[in-house]
């Protein structure tokens, strides 16, 4: 199957405006967070999704609030796109008591079920089998919600990926597998660790549709994801989407990216999908430039507010360290 077979229409102007808004919120959150890390104001680990904004935004634009999303440690964009408020997100990234998990999860384990963000895993590929289970619960409970699970290209070499696609196919689960192919599995380029160049071809082994699409083309991915989500919701079973993208900031904070050709990275950054989409929206007459300016100013204010809220929030009380292990805390 190819992305030219899609039936979902291009998003209307209002939807595209919202997609841009979310992409900007992600971009500004990331840029501010990275700046604070580099200044030493924030410690810990951080896996920047910069450059991959639309892999999250264009898929989530097709989802309902009660649909489920599962993501990985590079998950900020998926978390924001699914609707997790920036305040509780930033607070969880800092480990504050006001965070979505009260500071027990951190960036690699953000969970916010109120917004359908069900699992963020720190183990490559491990969210995929769990997404099947979420989809199974919806099926068994007679709910028509869909589960989207995001992962990278490296995760498609994990055994659990293959087990899960097979199971999802034989059970026709309402799940969409979204591989955000950013060309590198940690520090290893795709071709060195993966036996095929087109990851969506792996879907054929599991008798499910597989489609490769430019994940940095917001409208193209929106349409492909729309088809897959509609298919899942209507009982047509799973789809594997390969969204081609690129990460701007390497694997993890501090990555000097010595293994990445300089011109390759420069080309990708020059082709920044958020900047490009802004131009497209103006050129197509979909959103006025002044409106985009306002969106950006609002997003900047929202990010600044979230950062301040999180910084000023209290740390978790030490007494809470041993709670939430079991349902009844009396169990030692």
């Amino acid at each position: 199957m190819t992305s030219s077979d899609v039936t979902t229409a291009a998003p209307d102007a209002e939807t595209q405006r919202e997609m841009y808004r979310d992409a900007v919120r992600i971009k500004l959150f990331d840029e501010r967070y990275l700046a604070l890390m580099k200044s030493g104001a924030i410690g810990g680990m951080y896996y920047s999704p910069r450059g991959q904004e639309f892999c999250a935004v264009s898929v989530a634009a097709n989802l309902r609030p009660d649909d489920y999303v599962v993501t990985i440690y590079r998950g900020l964009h998926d978390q924001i796109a699914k609707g997790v408020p920036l305040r509780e997100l930033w607070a969880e990234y800092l480990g504050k008591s006001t965070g979505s998990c009260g500071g027990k999860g951190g960036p690699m384990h953000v969970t916010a079920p109120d917004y359908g963000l069900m699992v963020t895993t720190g183990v490559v590929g491990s969210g995929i089998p769990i997404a099947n289970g979420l989809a199974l619960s919806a099926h068994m409970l007679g709910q028509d919600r869909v589960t989207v699970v995001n992962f990278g290209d490296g995760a498609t070499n994990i055994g659990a990926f293959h087990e899960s696609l097979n199971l999802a196919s034989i059970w026709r689960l309402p799940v969409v597998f979204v591989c955000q192919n950013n060309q590198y599995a940690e520090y290893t380029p795709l071709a060195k660790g993966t036996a095929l160049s087109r990851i969506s071809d792996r879907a054929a082994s599991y008798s499910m549709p597989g489609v490769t699409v430019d994940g940095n083309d917001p409208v193209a991915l929106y349409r492909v994801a729309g088809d897959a989500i509609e298919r899942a919701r209507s009982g047509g079973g799973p789809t594997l989407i390969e969204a081609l993208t690129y990460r701007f900031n390497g694997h993890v904070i501090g990555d000097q990216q010595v293994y990445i050709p300089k011109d390759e990275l420069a080309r990708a950054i020059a082709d920044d999908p958020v900047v490009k989409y802004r131009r497209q929206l103006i050129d197509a007459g979909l959103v006025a430039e002044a409106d985009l300016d306002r969106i950006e100013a609002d997003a900047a204010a929202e990010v600044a507010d979230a950062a301040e809220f999180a910084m000023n929030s209290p740390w978790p009380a030490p007494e809470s360290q041993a709670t939430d292990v079991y349902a009844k805390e009396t169990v030692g």
Partner: protein
Amino acid sequence: MTVQDEHIEVTTKTMGFVQAINSALDIALGSDPTVFALGEDIQEPGGGGFGVHKGLGAKYGENRVRPTPISEQAIMGAAIGAAIGGMRPVAEIMLMNFVHVCADQLINHAAKLRYMSGGRTPVPITVRTATGTGGGFGAQHSDMLEAILVHSPGLKVVVPSNPADAKGLLLSAIFDDDPCVFVEMTGLYFSAKGDVPVGDHRIPLGQAKIARPGTDVTILTYGRQVVDSLLAAETLSGHGIDVEVVDLRTLQPLDTDTILASVAKTGRAVVVHEAVRRNGFGAELAALLQEELWGRLAGPVVRVTAPNTPVPYASTLEQAYLPGPEKITAAARRLMKG
């Protein structure tokens, strides 16, 4: 027949271990639509590797008694996700050694998702798994891995020793809000028959049982070794040694009150388990006893366990490996001689 059990009169039926587990699954499936079973081969007519699900597929259909491919990670992940989504899955991992195959899902995810989410995503799964030495299954189908599971905060671990406990503990595990691993020792599958309460009869997790009262020495044990320890206790009574056998039933949560009360009374403890000795659960029990009863023990805590080797195949080697009644008897006699 009827018996007095915990002050409530219950009707019982004589059945084996497999039938008791089948009965618990039947009751859970019949009483709660969110309960479902999944695992390899569990469809009719076989009902799984050991036939535990026999008849349930026909009664509840393949949507709720759900056969899977041989994909332990996918099975465990499906159970976890379904549990987060509001179901109570009962997953069968055919043999406990295969828990290693899906350890990432069980240990990194099922055990931790409640904690990592600040309590927002409980994982009420039950994982049933069979194991044990004595059937000629060799080194990769027989291991007792309970110590690894107890070492993973967030999991509960249950090892029943008889059909009635198997049913009552399994029902509690299924309706517990935490992930429970339920270890079924194959040596008990087709040997022990017992009187099992009819109906939804539950035994709370975290309550040990005095399987035999005594005053001279306490044997702390669980699973199949309860049977062996009771045989040893009979032999020891012929030597004038009055043994108390404590069946732990669940290792996490652990009934430390019953354990400490018994050992405080007898002053002597023998720990018996089928898992290998090094870093086995017995080491934890020995540490607990010295921490809590230092100065009140009449002798060192003795461990009777499998040796630090893989499980062998030949029956003579299996018998050498197992901590059977003779080894338990000898250990208790040595301890009494001081």
